[in-house]
């Protein structure tokens, strides 16, 4: 019963956080030095046009009222117009979502695969040489800058071996898989050490628990215990771990998209910063925040479905 209550009530927790995200994003753009309307319209706009736009966005009102204007537009999905692309920001962002999501899922799959293999090998050979090697790999790996690693892969795979294209996104699904392989591999290798470390300790923790001892004393085969009991019980910590690292993953895509010139949200954000296209920056930031809130929500729901002990606080 408790967990149904949890699943029903959990979405309500998102409301105050979303509200907070809107407040912070609002003040982020408010704190830009200079007149936003003048920045938006360029230097050649006449005084009448400026006044009209100012009234349209409610910028002649006190800041509180301005916030409610913003919130009203926010709920309707109106984030203003891009000064560079001369089109609604929301449409611009919508066009760029696909490559970013593709990259996120692709690199998530690769990194889970790597991390699972490495952590299982490490945990089953605890304190042996192979475990030490994996530990050293993880210690060095956390400190490797992803953008540099991407360039190193580029030099090796694209220039020396000529296996992959240096940049771009491709036309169809197969081409996406091909073009985004190196970027995903880059993000995965950078994320893998953190995942492996935590998964290894989760596995070792499960291996030393009472139910494993009980199963062993019943005379069950060690491989059987590992596959059917330990791995299953490590599922919840793994999913939680992915939730925690999702924010990091998004940060990674922003830089990697720029390194490999992928037409996604991250590269849009970076180019908009240089173009002083602040409304685009704001919209991408909000989009990423909502993505994280949703991920945390999904992680909580999955955890609640798997683990009946979770209760609503």
């Amino acid at each position: 019963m408790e967990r149904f209550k949890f699943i029903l009530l959990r979405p309500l927790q998102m409301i105050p956080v979303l509200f907070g995200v809107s407040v912070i994003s609002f003040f982020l753009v408010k704190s830009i030095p200079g007149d936003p309307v003048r920045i938006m319209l360029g230097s050649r706009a006449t005084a009448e046009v400026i006044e009209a736009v100012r009234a349209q966005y409610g910028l002649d009102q006190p800041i509180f009222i301005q916030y409610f204007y913003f919130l009203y537009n926010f709920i309707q999905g109106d984030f203003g117009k891009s000064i560079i692309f001369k089109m609604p920001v929301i449409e611009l962002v919508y066009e760029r979502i696909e490559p970013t999501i593709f990259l996120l899922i692709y690199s998530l799959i690769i990194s889970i695969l790597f991390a699972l293999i490495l952590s299982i090998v490490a945990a089953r050979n605890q304190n042996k040489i192979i475990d030490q090697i994996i530990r050293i790999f993880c210690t060095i790996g956390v400190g490797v800058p992803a953008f540099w690693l991407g360039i190193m892969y580029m030099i090796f795979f694209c220039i020396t071996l000529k296996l992959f294209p240096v940049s771009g996104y491709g036309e169809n699904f197969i081409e996406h898989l091909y073009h985004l392989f190196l970027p995903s591999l880059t993000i995965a290798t950078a994320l893998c050490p953190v995942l492996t470390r935590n998964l290894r300790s989760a596995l070792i923790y499960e291996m030393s628990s009472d139910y494993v001892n009980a199963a062993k004393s019943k005379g069950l085969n060690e491989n059987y215990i590992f596959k059917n009991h330990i791995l299953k019980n490590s599922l919840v910590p793994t999913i939680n771990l992915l939730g925690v690292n999702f924010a990091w993953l998004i940060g990674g895509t922003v830089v990697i998209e720029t390194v490999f010139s992928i037409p996604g949200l991250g590269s849009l954000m970076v180019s908009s910063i240089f173009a002083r296209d602040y409304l685009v920056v704001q919209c991408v930031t909000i989009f990423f925040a909502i993505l994280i809130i949703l991920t945390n929500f999904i992680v909580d729901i999955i955890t609640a479905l798997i683990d009946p002990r979770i209760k609503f606080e």
Partner: protein
Amino acid sequence: MKNINLKPSLIAGFLILFLWILIAIFANFIAPYDPNVHDLENTFQHPNLKHLFGTDNYGRDIFSRIIYGSRIDLQMAIFGVIFPFIIGNLIGHISGYFGGIVDSLLMRFLDITMSFPFFVLVIAIVSILGPGLKSFYIALALVGWVSYARLSRSQVLVIKNLDYISAAKTLGYSNVRIMFVHILPNSITPSVVFSMTDAVLVVLLGSALSYLGLGVQPPTAEWGVMIAEGQIFITSSWWMCTFPGLAIVLLALGFSLCADGLASILNVRE
């Protein structure tokens, strides 16, 4: 068993960091060339005995630029950690010690800050304040405090109920005195261990920002800037990107070895 394995890591970590600090202090004695002088007769030199790591498109010596770059990257690691450390611990202690409405307000604010992706929020703030190291430090201080606040708050929640704190309260000590003289020395350990891991993140973040052009500006010799400058020439001159990146890896390794070693000695689980 674990302790025996990890103590060498602390020593190795300290040695690496000590080495970097020495390099940063004595950069002008170690570097064979001026990091910013153009030498147009010696552009794109392969790594050789005269130029250990080769030269770039202006003929600047990569080795010397990495040596001088250590000053900026070390400075980033130190300032990028200190401000969030102080602010986070202050908020965490106030929140945990006083509890009630102060606590729930601060913690809601923390939840909201954490729902933004860390890196995205930092570059959004930097983009508004304008590129540069000062903006980077301000952005980190505004965003990075959350980890320290959470760590120290959970410590304070446990410690404030211990007998010696009740004793201090009975003696009539002020809240400020109890917080800073009696609680702080016991609650700060996890934050200190985390600050080493945080330093790794800050170095990576700072160099990534400079790589994107939002941090340290060229022609200053900073490792991220050097990688960005080198990326244009990767088809012909692999050494321009490779060596500055290795420098970042080596500095980050120093911090993460220290983090591992400290965590095992002080018995802190990350």
